C-alpha cells in the first residue's frame, strides 16, 4: 500500500503556501468538463460541493437524508475553533496547532494540523459573510468561549446549535450553486459502492431509497464526506442513519482504513435510561465551562444531590487536574467518570452517571446568564429526563461521539486509491487519538471550503475529463454485486430483526472495544463478532419489497458493514499496544491510571488494507514525524 503523505517541503508555516503555489491548476474553461461526485452533505460535503461548483466543476452530491440540510453536522452544539485571537488572550495559529496535536496525544500529522489551524480564521470570515448568526457581544463583535483542552477562548458559537447554523450556511452556499445549475443533488440516495477503473475511483453505485432503483454514476473523481462510524456501537450520539458503508465499501476496494480504534467517548451525555434506548444525547461540552463535575465521596450514597454536603462531594476533575479542572480534554474526563462509577460512586438509578452541577455558576452570574448561554441545552435535558437542571444537577455519562479514525488520506486529502478523496470525519488526518472540542466543525469546513478546492487539481490535471461511460465491465460488476447483496439480504428471511443484531454488536463493541480495552477482551470481541456475523447472514429478517422504501433493507446493508468493520476496529485496538487519547489499553497505564504512550513503537498511523472475504486485513504503517513539537507526556494537571 502506497502511503506517501506528500507533505510539502519547507518550514511548517510555509508548507501550505508552498503547496498551493505548486499545486496543479485546471484551466477555468476545462473545469466544467470535469465531473465530481460528492457523497455526503454535511459540513465537509456541502462546503466542498458548493465551492467546487463555484469554481466551475460539474458537481453532483448525494445524501441519504431527504434534504442536504439534515446531515448530522447539524447536531453539533458547542462551537467551532479558530485562531483569531479576538480575545487577546494569547491565541495564535501555532497555539491552536499545538493544542490540537497535544490534544490528539501526538498521533496526528503535523503538517495537516498546522494547515487546519492556518485556515481556521478564514472559516469564521466565510461563515460570518454567509449570515451565520454567531454569538455577539453588545459592541456587535463576535464573542468566544473556552472549550475543553484549551486555555484560551477561541471557540465561536451560535447558542447551543453551532452545527445547525454552520450547516445552514454551507447548505445556502450549496443552494446557490443548485439554483445556478452548477450542482445537482440526489437526496434519499445511498452510495453502495465505489467503482474503480484502472485502479482510479471513477464512479459510484447508488440506491434510490424511495424507488429502490440501483444506478451508476460516472465521474472524474469521487469525494467521500460521509462522516464517522460511531454507530458501530449502536448507542452513540450519532444520528440513526449515520453509517460506515461508503467508507467501508471504499476500504473493500483497496482504500486503507486508518486508526479505526481511535473513537471518542464524549464525557457529557445523558445517561442511558433503559433497554428501549435507541440513541444517546450529547450535552455540549461547553457546559463544563460553568458546570462542576462531582460524585459523592461515599460508595452507594443515594441521597438526593442537594442533601449531600459540600465536604462529602468529590469534585474529582478539579482534584486530579487542578490546572484544567472541569475543562480537561474529553478522553480524560470520560475515563475519570468511568473510574468513579466503577468504584461504585456513580449516581442515578443505574449508577452509571456523575453530576454536572450549575449551582455555583447560577449563584455567581445568575440564572438568566446561564439560561442565555445554555438555555436550549437545559431545555433539552429537561425534555429527556423530566428533571430541572436549574434546580438539580444534571446527570451525565460518557457516550460514543466522534471517530478520529477514518480512511487514510495524504496531504491532498486523497486516499491511497487515486481519485478517491475523503473529507471531514470520514478521513483520519487531523485529530490523532483524541479530538478537542469544537474542532470537528473546523476540520469539516476547512477540508471542504479551503483545502479540497486547491488540492483537487493535483489529481484532475492529469486526468482526461469525461473518459468514463459507465458501460465499463467494472461498473457492471459493481452494480451486479450491489444487486446480489440486496437480493441475498432480503432473501434470508431469518428470525431476527436487523436492529437486534445491531444492538448485540453494539454491546460487544462497548464491552470489548469501548472506554477501556485489553488484549483478552479484544480477542474475545473479534471472536464474538465473527459468530454474530455468521449468524447474521443466516438469520436476519428483512421484510418488504426491495423496489420501494424499505427501512429494514437500508439498515440491513449498513449493519452488515458494521459487523465487518467492528472486527477491523478490534484488530486495530489489539495491535496498538499502548494507550493514547481515546484508546486506552488497560495493560498500558501509569501508576496513577493515566494513559501510557509508547512513542518508540507506536508513533505511527495504523492503516488497514483489505485482503479479501474472511481474510485478516494487513497492517501498514505511516510513521509520524514531529519536527515542530516535542513529544511529551500529556499533562493537564
Amino acid at each position, binding site marked *: 500500500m502506497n502511503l506517501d503523505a506528500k507533505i510539502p517541503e519547507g518550514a511548517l508555516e510555509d508548507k501550505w503556501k508552498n503547496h498551493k503555489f505548486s499545486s496543479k491548476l485546471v484551466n477555468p474553461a476545462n473545469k466544467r468538463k470535469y465531473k465530481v461526485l460528492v457523497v455526503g452533505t454535511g459540513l465537509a460535503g456541502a462546503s466542498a460541493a458548493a465551492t467546487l461548483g463555484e469554481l466551475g466543476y460539474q458537481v453532483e452530491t448525494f445524501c441519504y437524508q431527504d434534504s442536504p440540510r439534515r446531515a448530522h453536522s447539524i447536531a453539533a452544539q458547542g462551537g467551532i475553533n479558530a485562531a483569531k485571537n479576538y480575545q487577546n488572550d494569547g491565541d495564535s495559529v501555532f497555539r491552536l496547532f499545538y493544542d490540537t496535536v497535544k490534544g490528539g496525544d501526538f498521533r496526528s500529522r503535523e503538517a495537516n494540523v498546522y494547515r487546519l489551524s492556518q485556515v481556521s480564521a478564514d472559516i469564521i470570515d466565510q461563515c460570518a459573510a454567509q449570515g451565520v448568526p454567531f454569538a455577539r457581544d453588545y459592541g456587535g463583535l463576535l464573542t468566544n468561549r473556552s472549550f475543553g483542552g484549551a486555555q484560551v477562548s477561541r471557540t465561536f458559537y*451560535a447558542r447551543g446549535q453551532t452545527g*445547525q447554523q454552520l450547516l445552514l450556511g454551507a447548505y445556502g452556499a450549496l443552494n446557490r450553486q443548485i439554483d445556478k445549475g452548477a450542482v445537482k443533488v440526489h437526496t434519499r440516495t445511498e452510495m453502495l459502492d465505489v467503482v474503480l477503473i484502472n485502479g482510479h475511483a471513477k464512479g459510484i453505485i447508488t440506491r434510490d431509497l424511495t424507488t429502490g432503483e440501483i444506478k451508476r454514476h460516472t465521474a472524474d473523481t469521487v469525494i467521500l464526506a460521509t462522516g464517522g462510524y460511531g454507530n458501530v456501537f449502536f448507542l452513540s450520539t450519532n444520528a440513526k442513519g449515520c453509517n460506515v458503508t461508503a467508507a467501508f465499501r471504499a476500504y473493500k476496494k483497496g482504500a486503507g482504513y486508518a486508526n479505526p480504534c481511535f473513537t471518542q467517548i464524549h464525557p457529557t451525555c445523558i445517561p442511558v435510561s433503559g433497554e428501549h434506548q*435507541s440513541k444517546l444525547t450529547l450535552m455540549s461540552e461547553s457546559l463544563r465551562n460553568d458546570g462542576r463535575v462531582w460524585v459523592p465521596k461515599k460508595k452507594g450514597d443515594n441521597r438526593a444531590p442537594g442533601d449531600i454536603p459540600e465536604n462529602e462531594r468529590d469534585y474529582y476533575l478539579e482534584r486530579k487536574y487542578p490546572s484544567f479542572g472541569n475543562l480537561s480534554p474529553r478522553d480524560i474526563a470520560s475515563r475519570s467518570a468511568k473510574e468513579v462509577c466503577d468504584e461504585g460512586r456513580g449516581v442515578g438509578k443505574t449508577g452509571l452517571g456523575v453530576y454536572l452541577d450549575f449551582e455555583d455558576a447560577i449563584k455567581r452570574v445568575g440564572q438568566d446568564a446561564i439560561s442565555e448561554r445554555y438555555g436550549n441545552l437545559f431545555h433539552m435535558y429537561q425534555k429527556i429526563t423530566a428533571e430541572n437542571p436549574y434546580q438539580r444537577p444534571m446527570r451525565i455519562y460518557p457516550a460514543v461521539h466522534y471517530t478520529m479514525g477514518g480512511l487514510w488520506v495524504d496531504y491532498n486529502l486523497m486516499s491511497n486509491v487515486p481519485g478517491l478523496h475523503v473529507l471531514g470525519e470520514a478521513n483520519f488526518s487531523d485529530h490523532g487519538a483524541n479530538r478537542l472540542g469544537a474542532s470537528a466543525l473546523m476540520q469539516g469546513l476547512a477540508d471542504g471550503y479551503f483545502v479540497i478546492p486547491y488540492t483537487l487539481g493535483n489529481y484532475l490535471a492529469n486526468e482526461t475529463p469525461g473518459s468514463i461511460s459507465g458501460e465499463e465491465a467494472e461498473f457492471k460488476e459493481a452494480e451486479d454485486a450491489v444487486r446480489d447483496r440486496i437480493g441475498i439480504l432480503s432473501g434470508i428471511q431469518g428470525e431476527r430483526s436487523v436492529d437486534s443484531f445491531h444492538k448485540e454488536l453494539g454491546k460487544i463493541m462497548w464491552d470489548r472495544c469501548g472506554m477501556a480495552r485489553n488484549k483478552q477482551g479484544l480477542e474475545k470481541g473479534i471472536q464474538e463478532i465473527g459468530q454474530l456475523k455468521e449468524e447474521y447472514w443466516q438469520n436476519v429478517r428483512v421484510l418488504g419489497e426491495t423496489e420501494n422504501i424499505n427501512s429494514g433493507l437500508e439498515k440491513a446493508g449498513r449493519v452488515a458493514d458494521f459487523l465487518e468493520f467492528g472486527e477491523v476496529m478490534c484488530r486495530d485496538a489489539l495491535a496498538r499496544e499502548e494507550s493514547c487519547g481515546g484508546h486506552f489499553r488497560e495493560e498500558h497505564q501509569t501508576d496513577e491510571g493515566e494513559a501510557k504512550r509508547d512513542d518508540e513503537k507506536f508513533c505511527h498511523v495504523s492503516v488497514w488494507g483489505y485482503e479479501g472475504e474472511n481474510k485478516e486485513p494487513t497492517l501498514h504503517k505511516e510513521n509520524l514525524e514531529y519536527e515542530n513539537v516535542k513529544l511529551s507526556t500529556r499533562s493537564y494537571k
Partner: protein
Amino acid sequence: MKITLHVWRQKNKSAQGGLKKYLVDEVSPDSSFLEMLDQLNEELIQNGEEPIVFDHDCREGICGSCSMVINGRPHGPEKGTTTCQLHMRSFKDGDAIYVEPFRARAFPVLKDLLVDRDAFDAIQQAGGYVSVATGNAPDANALPIAKEIADNAFNAATCIGCGACVAACKNSSAMLFTSAKVAQLSMLPQGQPERSKRAIAMVEEMDKQGFGNCSNHLECEAACPKEISGDNIALLNKEYVTAVLTSKDKK
C-alpha cells in the same frame, strides 16, 4: 404502559392508505415516542408484518426529519418539542393515540408516515442564501452587528425545516418556514444586497410548490417545535410587497 395506536399505513405514493390499529404493551414512560414505535416495529417484524416507515435521524430535535402528526398535532402534545424528543411520560397508561403523516398537497406521502418535503428545499434554492463565494469574505469583525439584530436573526434561524408549520396549517401554507428564512437574512447586513430579489424569488417558489395561503391563524407558530414567531410572517408580507413595488427587476 399500555398504548393503543392508530397508525397511518400506506404502501406507496399512489396507494390508498388507512389507519391501522396496534396495541403496544410494556412501554416505558422514559422511552421516546420514536422508541415506542421502534418497539412496535420490532414486534411487527417478529410477526412478519412490514415495520412502519417514518423519517427520523438525529433523534435530538435538530435535524428536522421527524414528521408525524400525533393526535392531530404535529410532533404531538408537548409545546416546543419534536416527536423524537417527545417522551411517553406525556401520555397516560391506556391512551389511544392517532399517528398520521404531515398533510399537505406539497408534501405527498411516500409511504406510511414518510412524506416528501422537497418543496422546502426548492424554496431555499430559489434564494435562501447570501451570494458570497468561498474565499471572498472580509474579516468577520469588520462588520459589527448590533446584538439585538443578531439575536433576532438567530431566533428566525433556529428553524429546523421540519414542516410542522405546514402540517398544522388548515391551508397547508408554508409562510412560517419561508418567512423565517427570509427574515433571518433580511435582518442581517449580509443579506441586504439581495434582499428584494430573495423575497420575491422565495415567495414565488413557495406559491409554485402548491402550498396554501396564509390566513393568519397562527396555528404554525403554536405547532412549531422551535417556537418561531409568527411576527416573521408579518415581516415577510412587508418585505415581499415592498420588494415587488420597488425592485427594478423585470418580474
